[in-house]
């Protein structure tokens, strides 16, 4: 076989390695370096300051808020996004009519851009012109300020969950279609019915898919930016700040790219740690039918 020649392996891998190095690894290595520098205004002057940015990061109270919010988002993504996707898939899979309709409806929000969804929800939550207050007024109740310090992070969670629940729904649905029908037929002969079928057959056989979805949901939660930035910009009083929105504020509003790079490294380390932990948690032998 021609592919036994290792030079061809190198040759065919070269484009990917080249692109990965140029657009991922090189910027990443650069970001690590920038995180140890004082770099303002995107100028050509960068001063090496050792661990100073990391010391500031540890003492920055907004980083603490952002970390807490990022963890809330991860929990929301795991339980409500992936969990919600699984629940919807189980429900849709069990119906006899309207399967295609529900599949389309649940998947639809994925195709809308995060910015558009963010804008839509910022209008929904707006005090003077918002949909929620219009409903409240119509019911004769008093208007509310929806985006408060206590509620903002949970209210920005709503559009994020709504947008991506369909993504996991489709993955689970595809996973379910791969489960051989004869397993269910045998179980039915043994007298299994309704939700027991889901709990004892479908969910255990979807274990690999669930593991992948958990990793995807966690990684996805760490990358959330657009919706939060449009709806609250991390406010009020930094209460809905995420590491991503704080990094953006430091880099582009504050023009402090050195400190912003430090936040990027913190995000990356957090992502790696959580993903490794999650992989260990769900690591079991692969399911085979």
């Amino acid at each position, binding site marked *: 076989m021609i592919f036994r020649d290792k030079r061809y392996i190198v040759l065919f891998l070269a*484009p990917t390695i080249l692109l990965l190095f140029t657009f991922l690894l090189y910027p990443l290595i650069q970001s690590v370096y920038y995180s140890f520098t004082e770099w303002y205004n995107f*100028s050509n002057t960068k001063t090496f300051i050792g661990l100073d940015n990391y010391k500031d990061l540890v003492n920055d109270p907004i980083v603490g808020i952002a970390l807490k919010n990022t963890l809330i988002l991860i929990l929301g993504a795991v339980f409500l996004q992936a969990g919600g996707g699984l629940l919807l898939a189980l429900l849709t899979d069990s119906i006899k009519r309207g399967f295609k309709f529900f599949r389309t409806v649940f998947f639809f929000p994925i195709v809308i851009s995060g910015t558009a969804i963010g804008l839509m929800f910022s209008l929904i939550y*707006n005090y003077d012109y918002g949909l929620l207050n219009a409903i409240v007024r119509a019911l004769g109740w008093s208007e509310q300020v929806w985006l408060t310090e206590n509620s903002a992070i949970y209210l920005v969670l709503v559009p994020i969950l709504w947008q991506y629940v369909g993504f996991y729904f489709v993955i689970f649905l595809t996973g379910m279609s791969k489960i051989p029908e004869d397993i269910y037929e045998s179980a039915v002969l043994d007298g299994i019915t309704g939700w027991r079928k889901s709990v004892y057959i479908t969910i255990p056989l979807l274990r690999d898919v669930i593991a992948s979805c958990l990793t995807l949901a966690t990684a996805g939660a760490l990358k959330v930016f657009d919706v939060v930035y449009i709806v609250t910009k991390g*406010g009020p*009083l930094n209460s809905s700040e995420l590491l991503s929105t704080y990094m953006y504020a430091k880099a582009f509003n*504050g023009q402090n790219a050195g400190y912003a790079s430090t936040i990027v490294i913190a995000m990356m380390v957090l992502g790696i740690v959580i993903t490794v932990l999650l992989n260990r948690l769900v690591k079991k032998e692969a399911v085979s039918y």
Partner: protein
Amino acid sequence: MKKKAVNKTVGLLVVMALLSTLLAACGGSDKAEKEPEKSGNKEISLRVATSFAGSDPWVPVWTKAIQQFQDENPGVKIVDESTPVNQEALRTKVKADAATGNLADVLFYFNGSETAILADSNSIVSWEEEFAKDPEWAKQFNAGIVDKVKYDGKLYALPYIGFYEGLFWNKALFEQHNLEAPSTYEAFMKAVDTFASTDIIPFATSLTTPYLQEALILSQVGPEGQQQAYDPSWAPALNIFKELNEKNAFPKDSLTLDDDKAQSLFASGKAAMMFNGSWTAAGLSQDPDIQISPFPLVPGGKGEGVIVSGFGSGWYMKNSKDQEKYDMALKFIKFMTSPDIAGEFAAIGGTYAVQTKASENTAQLLVDGNAMVSAAKDFVMPIDSYVSRESYTQFLNGIGYVSAGRKTAEEVLAEAKKLNDKIQ
């Protein structure tokens, strides 16, 4: 051996092809720049980056002026890279362009601390030589203003559209509630108390935007005090935010509201007052009830008759090695600063550092705004023109904390000062 050599050659060719594809993609902009070359006639492509983009009120005039320049100069293509100033998009673009040696040929961009970054890149023209070559053109610029916008004794940003900040108020709402014009602090506070007891919002503002704090600080500490960045003497001005917030002077969602929505509350008559810049005047000038006046002097304040006004942006030109491009960029800037074109910009609003052809259609609010500037005793530039961006964003963010009673004014000032001192 022969087979090996052939394999090596094939491998090498494939890798070279891949690399050349990648490099060709990276060099796209260079190719694009050379593309307008036509046989015989050289077509010049000028990259122009300004703030006339998005919802900026001067966009229609700017677009028309570009078209007119291209029509009058066949063979010139203006590549409009204008970017909105919102969310610091223009600053980021220009700074990144300057750092990577990819600056546009012509810029209409901020001066003050931003000039330093462009001047340090050694890629922009200092205008003294061109003024000496064309004294007639130089004469069109107000010499006093030109002196004020110099950086390190040199003129890099040609002043053009000036701005002012003022207290906009709705005369009809004031009359309906038998209130005096908010020309004194007492009248202002009485209006706040009166409107707060109705369903009219007394003062439309977002607590994430800079305008009201500019007014309060200047009124409190005067022009000299305003230059002492984040001095503890600013604290009483910030405490007024807390007082106003407690009096329900601001929209209930002022902590998450953006400036556009605050403006629309005022423009739609849902709010009685707003402090904002001259760029908002054009949109408000259709309503004859909208008035403008300076912010009243706060008790014990030192800023009587002083307003935030100036020429915060100007025309920069890249020092292009290509003489034809240099000449065309210069021609473009002379065209934009001509009385005809400046007159069209002036009809939209603002004060001008160049002679403008008088427009008969200037709205009364714009006339009143210019009269307010003429009557002012002194002018200062906004705080963000001389402090670091990071300290300023921290300071702006802190105003919300002071208003909500979560931090003291002194704490917010100390945090901002610490960041500002880092790069001063």
